[in-house]
């Protein structure tokens, strides 16, 4: 890897932030003016939403199972094992559901977007699209953006639900709690602010996954090796962004709802 001066490294980073901001801004603006490629939006919703269901369900379910098992063990020492339900539901809805779903979808779809768009870029298909009078941001980025934000929201709800169900299964079969006791405790443990906080995060994560994936895809240079590099960068950057933004949103929500 060649060494670069601090100045040129800083310039590269500033230019990258500028280009990313322009891409994200234009992709959002394109959602509010015609033409809108509805067929591409449905296709992306199917690919991103339905296609991610298996990994989201599996991840959510087993996270709930592990959470219940760990919590019950710790709570038993304080004689509060009946609180397992609220601990699992709070953890899943506020934090683990949104973040893990975001990370899983990022791993699957940010990489997919970067490699697909990257391949199109290095084979001049993006230039061909522009030459044919089509805006690639409108045709390729905007549908992925709206589909990811919309579907990640519902995937997170599914993840939360199966996580709580997984926790219930473990609590009943291994810890010895009653179904009703677990579910009532889970329900009571959640307040309005928790649900709003948990449902706000996937909106940001979806935006990050789509824009970062598309950005690295459209910036790809250097043939197939470049496509591989763009794919890796997209997953790494979007995953880090998701966790950083998760912290910022959590802080914001605590400021708003106070807990």
């Amino acid at each position: 890897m060649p060494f670069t001066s601090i100045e040129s490294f800083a310039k590269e980073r500033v230019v990258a932030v500028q280009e990313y901001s322009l891409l994200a801004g234009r992709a959002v603006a394109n959602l509010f003016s015609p033409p809108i490629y509805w067929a591409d939006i449905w296709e992306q919703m199917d690919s991103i939403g339905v296609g991610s269901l298996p990994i989201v369900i599996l991840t959510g379910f087993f996270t709930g199972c592990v959470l219940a098992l760990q919590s019950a063990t710790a709570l038993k020492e304080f004689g509060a094992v009946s609180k397992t339900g609220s601990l699992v539901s709070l953890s899943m809805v506020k934090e683990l559901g949104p973040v893990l779903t975001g990370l899983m979808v990022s791993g699957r779809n940010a990489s997919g977007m970067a490699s697909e768009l990257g391949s199109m870029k290095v084979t001049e298909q993006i230039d061909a699209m522009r030459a044919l009078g089509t805006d690639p941001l409108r045709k390729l980025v905007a549908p992925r953006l709206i589909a990811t934000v919309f579907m990640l929201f519902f995937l997170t709800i599914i993840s939360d639900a199966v996580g709580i169900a997984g926790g219930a299964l473990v609590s009943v079969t291994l810890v010895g709690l009653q179904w009703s006791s677990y579910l009532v405790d889970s329900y009571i443990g959640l307040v309005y602010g928790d649900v709003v906080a948990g449902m706000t995060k996937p909106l940001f994560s979806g935006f990050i996954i789509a824009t970062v994936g598309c950005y690295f895809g459209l910036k790809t240079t250097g043939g197939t090796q470049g496509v591989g590099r763009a794919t890796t960068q997209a997953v790494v950057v979007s995953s880090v962004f998701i966790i950083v933004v998760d912290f910022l949103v959590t802080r914001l929500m605590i400021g708003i709802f106070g807990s």
Partner: protein
Amino acid sequence: MIGKGARPIEQLEPGAPVVVFENVSIGFDGKPVLKNISFEVDRGQTMIILGPAGCGKSVLMKLANGLLSPDSGVITVFGQEITAMSEREMFKLREHIGMVFQESALFDSLSVEDNVAYRLHEEHMPEDEAHAKVVEALKFVELEAAIDKFPSELSGGMRRRVSIARAIITAPDLILYDSPTGGLDPITSTTIIELVIKQRDVTHTTSLLITHRIQDAFTLATHRFNKEAGHMEPIPDGGIDDSTRFLILNEGSIVFHGSTMDLVHSEDPWIKEYLS
């Protein structure tokens, strides 16, 4: 701005050039690629761009279509200064420009029919009408049998022909051919050049063509398309096509710009060596 349905070439003053480059320069990573390039392409002309690999031919072609912006200089297409146009305005102008890319650049997830009909689908043309136009365009490039195939199922020459069909389907007023014969065997190259000559002589569309093969360039200059016989033939009595002009680049600068006869009689030692 171009209104819907209006052809920009119709708004061009009689005798005005279709493409004008004025002192155009561009560089990448601090290295100049094109330096003070100035030339004009008149209506109906075929400008053949020659030059060694890496001299900036493809960059010049992308500049002509607004796919790249120059660092300095002015580019005018159909009388409109594209260097001052937004990307959105360029999309409207590009509806009247066809482009054949070096590696075809077909959309690999779409069939041949959908690739060729891409622009028609963007214009929401009824499916039956679009299909008829696709068949007509594929007949022009003699590839109608491949309509349901995907790009991965085609040979390099077939992909190039599909790319030409995609470029000409809306009867553009300017066609940009970026090395349409690059990487092809001599027989397939001749087939592609015949299609370019056919397009030139049937529709008299203004075009820019990059080629690495000097024999292709001279075939273009010395042949015409015989509509009755359905194939190209040498222009009788050793004639030369008047509409063919040459532009030769070397190290980012123009080293020759003129007619076929000017090129053949050039005394410039570098050009003589390049052509030999």
